């Protein structure tokens, strides 16, 4: 079962004719994902990796019955691409694009609430259901099927942790990168709720970072709703206040959003805290 994505998902790629779009859709196909088509305005009628390219998302959905979309278009066009996917009735929209203006995302967030679509990201590595399908950047070989659900704000930190888990024999159900931007479509709490309800997932690994209060909300949810054990790591204990650490959301402001306050909240909620991501497998045992 796992969550959100499976070998039955029918995936289209918005921006499939771009360099990155081409490269990553090939990796997704190699992993076993059902990539059914792509969309690039003005390039309808072309083919990429034997998949048809359409001018609009609606035309692609009509022809291929796609229900999942990966968006890999430049930031100035990303909000429009998300609206187009929502209006075409896509159930799961995964936006990998980095650098989308926050006001664009606030508009998207409001529109999304009135729709039946779910958005993952933006500025995220995407997601992968081990042994079944992946949408996004995650390297194909680092994951093995198992019973641990992984949710993270960061890309390469997720690879680091998932690789360490796989090497130690702890396989995964689904690994979800929710993204490091201030406004994102799917929160830690949303993913934790899905893992809690997923019969295949027995344990959960959560990787957060400084800034905002998403990890505090996650701690409250873990305390009140989770029966499955959670292992957590929070990046940025050594970060100074008032400085943005790469991710637009990763900034400690007015003493709020520090790593320590998040670690304390998660520990108080019963999560096991790793001070080194390479120690996460030990805490899962």
């Amino acid at each position, binding site marked *: 079962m796992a969550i959100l994505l499976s070998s039955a998902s029918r995936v289209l790629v918005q921006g499939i004719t771009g360099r*990155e779009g081409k490269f990553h859709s090939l990796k997704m196909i190699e992993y076993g994902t059902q990539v059914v088509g792509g969309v690039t305005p003005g390039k309808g009628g072309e083919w990429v990796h034997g998949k048809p390219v359409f001018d609009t998302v609606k035309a692609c959905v009509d022809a291929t019955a796609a229900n999942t979309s990966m968006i890999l278009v430049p*930031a*100035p066009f990303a909000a429009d691409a998300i609206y187009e996917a929502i209006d075409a009735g896509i159930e799961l929209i995964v936006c990998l694009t980095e*650098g*989308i*203006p*926050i*006001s664009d*995302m*606030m*508009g998207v*967030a*409001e*529109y999304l609430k009135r729709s039946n679509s779910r958005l993952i990201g933006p500025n995220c*590595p995407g997601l992968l259901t081990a042994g079944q399908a992946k949408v996004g*950047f*995650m*390297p194909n070989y*680092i994951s093995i099927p198992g019973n641990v659900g992984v949710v*993270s*704000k*960061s*890309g*390469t*930190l*997720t*690879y*680091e942790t998932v*690789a360490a888990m796989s090497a130690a024999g702890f396989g995964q159900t689904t690994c979800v990168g929710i993204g*490091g931007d*201030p*406004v994102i479509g799917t929160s830690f709490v949303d993913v934790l709720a899905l893992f809690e309800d997923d019969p295949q997932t027995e344990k959960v690994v959560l*990787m957060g*970072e*400084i800034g*905002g*209060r*998403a990890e505090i*909300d996650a701690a409250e949810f873990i305390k009140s709703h989770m029966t499955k054990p959670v292992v957590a*790591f929070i*990046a*940025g*204990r*050594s*970060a*100074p206040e008032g*400085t*943005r*650490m*790469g*991710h*637009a*959301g*990763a900034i400690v402001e*007015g003493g709020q959003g520090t*790593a320590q306050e998040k670690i304390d909240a998660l520990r108080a909620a019963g999560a096991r805290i790793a*001070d*080194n*991501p*390479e120690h996460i497998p030990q805490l899962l045992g």
Partner: protein
Amino acid sequence: MNLHEYQTKRRFGQYGIPVANGIVARTADEAYAAAVQIGGVVVVKAQVLVGGRGKAGGVKVAKSPEEAREAASRILGMDIKGHTVHQVLIDPGANIAKEIYLGITNDRAAAKPVMMASSEGGVEIEQVAKDNPDAIRREWISPSLGLRDYQARNIAEGINLPREHWGALTKIAKALYRCYIDSDAVLAEINPLVITGENTLFALDGKMVLDDNALYRQQELASQRDTSGDPLVEVQAREAGLTYVKLNGQIGCMVNGAGLAMTTMDMIKLYGGGDIGPANFLDIGGGAQADRVAAALRIILSDTDVKAVLFNIFGGITRGDEVAKGILQALEEVPTTIPMVIRLAGTNSEEGRAIIDGASIPNIRSASTLTEGAQKAIAAARGE
């Protein structure tokens, strides 16, 4: 990106918010001329992109052009929290009866803009939030509807503003919202918004912070960026497409991805025993071609506190062999004897390690895990 007070107020004025027509001066003589032109009492205000200038002595009232010259000569060149004052704003003196706060920012949890007002103006809103949270009135704004009149009235009523000012406040609040949206601001605030002795509302001070991700469509505002207060290396890094933040430790870090970069810093601090720490945050981003690695290495080594460098690259999009070639090329361009620890993992990492080993450079050690990389870098920084 931060705007100066004079830039912000000029922008506010374009939206119909009542502001003073102040004059910017770069020398004491220019300040004198500005005071003559304005006439009467003026205020000389340091223009720096950092808070707390009033406490630092960066704001002075001058009753005559001579006093304005005197004040400007003292303020220009002053150091305020590491920022040198290069210009002052000469504003006409204001007759203040009461100060309030009005601002808009993004509430990331609600994914909406939030307008905040407080009857305690002239104080930082963060301080009011801490000391007297009930004094703050908030209105969340629907991005598709914009700020409605009733919300402005809610704010006016919520901060006990006399009814005679509700109309004026509504106008200012709506103009501020429009300005915030059109400018792609993440913060736009009037602090203080004053009720004058003549019983009108007036924006005495203004602050705007713009969304860096939106600068591509805000070219007029982006061209006003003042980098004179930024450390030179951070400006260089920005130009090379890198995110670099200087810290106080001894180990230079070059990492791909923001989360992993923070984690690498954390590991150095964790195993550094209190005396060794990270010298910087640096995310080289995806891809990591040779020229970018070289630019990053040059920036890291320009910090004279650096005693060792740790490369931690987990290949996803980034390929280990490309990074290895980049490192070797960078070392040709930027020769150094500082010890380096290289940890490559993920896509093509074995090929990458073979390239590094093949070059047999004496000051390079390799590591296979993050923990080992951090520990070896710490040992190297200690000269072990």
